[in-house]
């Protein structure tokens, strides 16, 4: 039985992939990358989940969830936003040069 959390995160990844391949607007593509990013993070965290367990903070007893995916995702989110800002600033630079955000027109201008 496939789990709904996995299905949801995979759906996010697939939507992000669809945006990256099909959409022609640079900012939209960057948004698509961000959606993929979120999907991957959710997938990681849900793999580390343990039923009836608490967060891995050891001032209460009892089973804890897996801390490793959380540690990885924690940094990944921060990196994600900074990389997205970098991509956006490149997109702004392209807009200043070519006056458009549409990929077709940018490639046309280049030729």
């Amino acid at each position, binding site marked *: 039985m496939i789990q709904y959390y996995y299905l949801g995160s995979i759906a996010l990844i697939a939507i992000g992939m669809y945006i*990256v391949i099909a959409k022609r607007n640079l900012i939209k593509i960057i948004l698509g990358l961000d959606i993929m990013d979120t999907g991957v993070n959710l997938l990681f965290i849900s793999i580390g989940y343990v039923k009836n367990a608490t967060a891995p903070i050891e001032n209460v007893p009892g089973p804890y969830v897996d801390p490793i995916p959380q540690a990885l995702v924690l940094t990944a989110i921060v990196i994600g936003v900074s990389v997205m800002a970098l991509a956006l600033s490149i997109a702004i630079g392209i807009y200043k040069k070519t006056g458009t955000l549409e*990929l077709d027109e940018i*490639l046309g201008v280049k030729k």
Partner: protein
Amino acid sequence: MDALTLFGIFVLLPLVGALVSYFGKKYAPIIAVIFTGISGIFLYLWYGNFGSYTIDIGVKLNLTFDITTWFFMLMMNTVIFSSLLFSVSSKLKRAGGFATLMLLGFAGANGVLLARDFLSLYLFWELMSWSIYLLVLRTSGEYARRYLLFGVLSAYLLIMGIGIIYYYTGSFLYADALSGAIPHAIWPWILTFLILGFGIKMAIVPFHVWAPYAYSSEQPFVAFLSGGLSKLGAFGIFMSMYSIAGISLLQSFGTFRGVSLMGYPFALLGAATAFIGTILAIFQDDIRKLLAYSSIGQLGYVMIGLGLGTPLAIGGAMFHAFNHAFFKSLLFLGAGAVIYRTGKYKISEMGGLGYRMPFTFMFVLFAIFALAGIPLTSGFISKWMLYEAAISRKFVIVAPLMLIASVGAYLYSYRILYGVFLGQLKDEDKNVKEAPGPMLAAMFILMVPLVIFSIVPGWILGWINKILVENGIGKLNYTTFSYSSAIGGANMAVFWIAFILLLIFAMLMFMAKKARVVDQYDNYLAGEAPPSVALHAAHNYYKPLRDTWAPLLKHSIDRAYEKFSKFFAGGFYEIKRIYTGNPQDYAAYLGIAFLAFLLVGWWLLW
């Protein structure tokens, strides 16, 4: 003597010399000559002072100074010494870089000869290979690329062979390869990789197409490349077949008339090399290309000997390699001297230079005798040994091809002799002077051993015999002036006595009638003035022969490579259309690749 001394004199000293001569500017060739001279003196002093030394730096490295190494080092050292001496007066551009690269190649070559483990072999091999690349690059990027392609192929083949050995034995030492860790069925692969890898440096067919271009660069370097560095291929093949694998292992793959089936295909390849190289050399008008194809052909003989693997054949191959080192570098230097003085490359544009450059003519004449194997010279003995080795085992393909190649060698050497040095002197060459002193000295240094070893071949045969005995191949029957084999042999003393008698006879003939010198246009033209090129003996030289061979010459290996590369270039053009330049297409490819990986992983796991 310990490992460090050995390594220091033969590898580090040339490297230091390379560094020093880089800053030597104009005096760089002189500095380089001094450094090679020092290492040469040590080489002569240490004859017999043989030994094996191990350096342990995590992996074991083994340096061995034995008779095989010494024999090949002797060639290498003499050739580079005279090449550098020649370059002192040849006014090369950026002489510092030239001397540096030559010494780097020398250090690499010495390292290859000293190494008895694959790791240091490969390192020094690459050092040598890259210095050749840079030296060719000084002349032409196009030629250097051609060389590089085959150099890299050679390195890949070597590293495949070495990698297989290391995979099975876990050791880089030559001595450990035969410990039984390698399955018997793997050996043919290893040997094929190693032999082809080394053979590319020897320019065997069909990997010879780099050689005519690389050999068209600066003459002193080419002399070293053809005379010295290409012998490393012979050395490597000898080591891998008879020192690493050993003759009993080779014989265990089946024999054909007493010759291992592992070696016989390479003997055939060598015969093809000798044949094709010689035929192509006959039709060259460019003196550099002619000598290059001749070099390919002569190294084919060495390959034949190494492939046949009888004591006589290997002895002949070694002797021929030794002779080739001297006469071919002498020829290249002689051609270099002519090119330096006249600035011309084409044989059909020269002529009569023997009157203006008598000493060069004399040196080149002797080298040509040795090259053509005229029965007075050491070149004759080595070729004769190879013939006997082939004939005694009734090899009906190898022996005739060798014979044709030998006749061909006579034809192209006659072309040099007549086209360049004899015949009518061209008007524009009336004021050509004799080559400068260092050039003559360099050629003299190369000629003297040739003459001496022509009279007393026993000295070299003694060294070769030691090599053969040390590697357990067999031994030669020889005396100071002759050698003998099951079907004959040769005695130099007889030849020389006959020669001296003939010489006296010829002198008498020559003195009996006085020759008269006439102007080029005065003899048989009756006032007509045709273009002067048509008068030259080298114009349309060997045209009938060329017409005979024409159907065969249409099929060129160079053109085969060209077709091959064009075919692939077309294919790559189609592939190139995948790269549309649109980032989203790449993203889609990534998505498809991701899907493919998922499918494969899914299928593999459950």
